[in-house]
């Protein structure tokens, strides 16, 4: 229900029920099993070599931090390979989307956590970004 005082932004997802809940469960079940998906609700897996960036302890969306160990493991979890080393290698193996590693990804919309990225893709919710971010598109740079 929307009233004048309802400050919920359009990007916030309503409660998942019925068919939508089924989609959520299928997505979670498959993507968690295959990619250790963290259900951020704004999936960019295809742009990151099929390595989920939300598994990075620093939640980085645009590439590895400077702390990657010389053996390619994570600074925070030294027993595990860096998610972004895997992303880079994975992206080189993909037939498509390899150049996506060069794209600047927008900040995470944390309201979409635990929602279905499939539904958000269809509804366009995952394309929502702060107005200022969108305003800073290409071509208006003062260099």
């Amino acid at each position: 229900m929307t009233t004048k005082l309802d400050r919920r932004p359009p990007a916030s997802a309503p409660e998942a029920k019925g068919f939508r809940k089924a989609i959520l469960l299928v997505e979670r079940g498959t993507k968690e099993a295959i990619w250790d998906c963290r259900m951020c609700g704004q999936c960019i897996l295809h742009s990151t070599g099929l390595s989920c960036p939300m598994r990075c302890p620093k939640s980085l969306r645009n590439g590895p931090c400077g702390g990657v160990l010389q053996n390619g493991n994570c600074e925070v979890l030294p027993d595990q390979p860096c998610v972004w080393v895997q992303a880079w290698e994975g992206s080189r193996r993909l037939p498509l989307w390899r150049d996506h590693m060069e794209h600047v990804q927008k900040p995470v919309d944390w309201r979409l956590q635990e929602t279905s990225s499939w539904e958000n893709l269809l509804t366009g919710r995952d394309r929502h970004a702060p107005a200022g971010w969108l305003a800073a598109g290409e071509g208006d740079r003062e260099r």
Partner: protein
Amino acid sequence: MSGLPARSHLHRLLASGQFVVTAELQATDSPDPESVYRLADLLRGSVDAVNCTDNSAAHPHISPLAAGHLLLDRGVEPIVQLACRDRNRLALQADLVGAVALGARNVCLMTGDDVTAGDHPEAKPIYDIDAIHAIQIARIMRDRGIYVSGRRLDRPLPLFIGAVENPFAPPHDFRPMRLGKKVEAGAEFVQTQIVFNLATMRVFMARSGDLGLLDRVFILPSVYVCRSAGAARYLRDMVPGIDVPDSVIARIEGVPSERQADEGIRIALEIVEELREMRGVAGVHLISIKGDESIVRLVEEAGLLPRPGAGFP
């Protein structure tokens, strides 16, 4: 790299093609302004700008905004570092406005060492946004005069925006591309991780050149002035992302301990000389843990004096 008027002393020097020297301030644990003034007095005249670190290695120290303000009190231009580890997008923007209000113009935006690397490993890290987001948000506040939400600032922030990059950490092939993303987001200068491995640095610079980045961003590699073999080993073993070749450690170990500090300066000097010859290197960023005097000595012995400081403030 910019047709606009320079936004800072550092910007002006870089734009004029001067080989610049920046240094990292040993952030103090003292509420006494004298603790920063003393370092400012030591470094003034030897370097062009000084980085105010942001809880470096995830240990709390004096805030970078406060340290930057105190440096300005003593006529030293600050580079205010801000890390995403401790601040979400609201806090970042608040600090950017605050930094400018206090007189700072240079900022250096980074993800930050994880809390597990510091003395408060039980803390909740933030990581709301990553370094590239932070850089683009700073650019939005500068070029459009708005917060990332779209709300207007009273006036645009005259920031000179910096970033960091680590050519020495895997995945090496992606590092130049990641630098490219930072430039795309708005980074105008970049300070690299500490250089010991010149071969890797050369490849990084060449690849960055292939991507057309050397004309779009000022690159300042970091040089560490090592005071002892123990310090070199600490860097190799305890600081993630640093590549200290065994040959460097062997070389410092090879001299008696009372002369190791001299050998450390000699090694740093050789690295500075090599870097000066590399295309696209716009200056050097000097780091020494608890050894600000050795930075002054290095600048002198490298023939980098006098610094062109007449234009500041």
